């Protein structure tokens, strides 16, 4: 996958909690990537096998009057790939301000 600014941003947000579940809207907020860009990016990551997705169960939804949400989790392959991507991005001057900003927020 081509290393873009949005990809690095999403990678940083995903790797901030590498073993946790991620939700579309929260991920968009944490990464700072517009949802119009992020969902296609997540789909490409799913296609690459870096993520796997699932849906909340009715138990998890509880009594809330809302449909179950879709979540994303990093696979082992994804953790390796995104780790390598972030490591490469650290060496790249294009992403230096992004990485520094994320470091300041404690995401990287």
């Amino acid at each position, binding site marked *: 996958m081509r290393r873009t600014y949005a990809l690095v941003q999403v990678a940083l947000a995903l790797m901030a909690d590498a073993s946790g579940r991620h*939700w*579309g*809207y*929260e991920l968009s907020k944490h990464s700072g990537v*517009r*949802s*119009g860009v992020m*969902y*296609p990016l997540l*789909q490409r990551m799913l296609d690459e096998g870096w993520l796997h*997705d699932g849906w909340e169960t009715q138990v998890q939804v509880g009594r*809330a009057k*809302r*449909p*179950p*949400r*879709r979540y994303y989790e990093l696979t082992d392959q994804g953790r390796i790939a995104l780790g390598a991507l972030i490591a490469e991005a650290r060496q790249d001057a294009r992403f230096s301000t992004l990485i520094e900003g994320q470091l300041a927020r404690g995401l990287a």
Partner: protein
Amino acid sequence: MISLVYHVLAWPTFFLALLVFGFAPGAALRLIVLAYKREDPRRHELISELYHVPRIERPFWVAEQLETALSEGLGGRLATWSAKRLAARRAKRPIRFLAPVAQPGRGRVLTLLWSPPVELRRADVQPNDVLVAFQQAVSTGDAKPVNFVRCSNHGPQRAVNWALLFLQLRDQLTVGAWQYADPECPQQIAEDEPSICLSFTPAAKHSTLGSSELCAVCGSNCQ
């Protein structure tokens, strides 16, 4: 042009947008996600995510989804539609399978199979048999009727929907490998029938027949 910009930015347009995306974002989103294919999980995902977007942000968030749905959803549908159309057009066209010919001769049997049967044993294949196995890869579905067109001196002969064809060849053919090619078959095949014209092209290093393409039946270049 200026008047167009004026109309786009006019107050009624602005209020309409505010009404649609601001007061009924759920309904607007439900319409927007229809751009995605029926089986696309994004349809349900976006609707469920809307409940977690703060109300103040919903109009903008829904507007963003409209942008993505137009590019991805409609784009995807358009790509699928054009692929289906292309497949349908290709299915109407005759297909030609090419295989290298090693030795000319007579009395060989060509076995044409839709796909290699599991129970086919090596012993079932006679020394002089030529086995050509292929799977229909041009269109989806196994039950698609396909005509097999034999060219002979007596005109084209057709065998429709035969799972197994034994053709008595006038010339001895040995097929080492075959490959798929997609040129127009020049045989007399009706345009509206999906057809297969089986022809053989001699392999340059084995063949003694030259480089012309040969008919499966008559063994010569009857085209």
